[in-house]
């Protein structure tokens, strides 16, 4: 059986996820045994257009991005969104809550008309995404799992429960014990509770759990005396496109 051809494409992002793959080191050689990488800007210069699996990094934030992603979708049999920007819009989406014209002016000044931009969107907002490797940056172990599943024809599954599940399993002290508001209870697991295990609160980079209870989230953040603007900052850092803290919603 011939090796599946795999391509990596980057959109609006820091390219950290791609670099992170290069850190797979030993495993990278195993991966190269199993797939043919035909497009990978960070690692090779040869760019093929013939691929079956497309890994997408970055959010879609210009009209050109939209054009490109449609083209990739047409070619790829399987399209996987890698990292928070591709998965949920990520950090780039923070600006979506701001006045877009003001944003352009701040960044480009008087040249703003030369750089058309749109609100930063997740890949799935524009085309069908088959699978995800969430996180900022994406988790290498999870990337390996997803790739391994794809190569064996399995459906790659990512957790649908909260980071607390993984954090408790590691017997970490809860950051709330220290009065630190953490996004863990409402963030999708899969990172092995990386941030809380290293003493930092969860930023929510893996997106929200499928059934977010905003009431609970607000109650708890309020209990820890975070102001509404601080609560918004926690939520909007990665999840701007998915929560609207202006609204009141009840179960």
């Amino acid at each position, binding site marked *: 059986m011939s090796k599946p051809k795999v391509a990596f494409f980057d959109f609006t992002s820091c390219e950290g996820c791609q670099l992170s793959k290069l850190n797979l080191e030993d495993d990278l050689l195993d991966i190269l045994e199993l797939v043919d990488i035909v497009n990978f800007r960070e690692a090779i210069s040869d760019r093929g257009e013939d691929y079956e699996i497309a890994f997408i990094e970055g959010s879609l934030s210009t009209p050109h991005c939209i054009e490109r992603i449609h083209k990739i979708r047409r070619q790829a049999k399987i399209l996987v969104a890698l990292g928070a920007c591709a998965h949920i819009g990520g950090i780039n989406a923070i600006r979506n809550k701001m006045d877009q014209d003001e944003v352009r002016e701040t960044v480009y000044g008087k040249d703003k008309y030369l750089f058309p931009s749109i609100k930063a969107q997740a890949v799935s907002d524009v085309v069908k995404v088959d699978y995800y490797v969430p996180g900022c940056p994406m988790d290498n172990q999870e990337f390996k799992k997803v790739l391994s599943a794809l190569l*064996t024809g*399995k459906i790659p599954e990512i957790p649908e429960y909260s980071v607390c599940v993984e954090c408790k399993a590691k017997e970490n002290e809860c950051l709330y014990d220290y009065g630190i508001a953490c996004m863990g209870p409402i963030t999708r697991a899969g990172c092995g509770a990386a941030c809380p295990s290293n003493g930092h609160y969860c930023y929510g980079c893996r997106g929200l759990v499928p059934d977010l209870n905003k009431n609970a989230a607000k109650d708890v953040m309020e209990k820890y005396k975070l102001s509404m603007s601080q609560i918004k900052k926690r939520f909007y850092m990665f999840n701007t496109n998915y929560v609207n803290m202006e609204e009141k919603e009840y179960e």
Partner: protein
Amino acid sequence: MRNDYIPYPARIVSARDETYDTKTFRLKFTEPSVAEDFNFKQGQFLEVSLLGRGEAPISICSSPLEREYFELNIRSVGSLTGAICRLKEGDILYVRGPYGNSFPFKEVKGRDLVFIAGGIGLAPLRGLIQMVLKNKKDFGNVSILYGAKSPEDLCFRDELEQWSEVEGTSVYQTVDRASDGWNGRVGLVTELYEAAGIEEGAGEMSNTTAFLCGPPVMIRFAARKLKACGFKPGNIYVTLERYMKCGIGKCGHCNIGGVFVCVDGPVFSWEHVEGFTEDF
């Protein structure tokens, strides 16, 4: 002590297409001693594995009276069942079990029986139907009411034909959506009741036992209507679906109310279901 989570290899003797997405596999354990020790009852299920793909609970769809092989009816809905459906004769599946309780058989001798199934819900009832029809003289009239989404979704079509030829046995079929060439009924499975002589106000159906399997919504409607038509809840048996991850009452996934579908079920009398402290 044996680790009960280890499955045994079984070879596919034959694989038959039932529908566009459903197949019936005939299997035989590769080790004769395992085959020898394997005894199951009508209505029980197995935990079925495919190397590297995972494991899922699947009910046995053949008759326990058949000692040479057992059969599984599998619909391709996910990554595991999809891969199983691509297997061919000679390939190996891995199974452990049997698990769960069973449908009454001896207990319902001499009675009229009604089987009501939706979609692949016919599979868990099939073994019992085969047993009953093989011993038909011990039973009264048998009605088989079968509904599916479309004519293309009907399973065991040849057998339905054969069953209808057994004396004192009637088969009624219906689909939600007809397609070209379908001259049969269109509508819900409960709309077949009247044809099978199950009617409201016709008095108590004290000599009839009903067996139901299908999607939860269907089971709910079908069982309630049976009650309205004079069936005692204790004479209605249903088999319920849950994702039993362990099959032995440990993992908790199939816990409904106070019962575990994998050990207390999957067969329950409707009387029992009505007493659950939770909707099923």
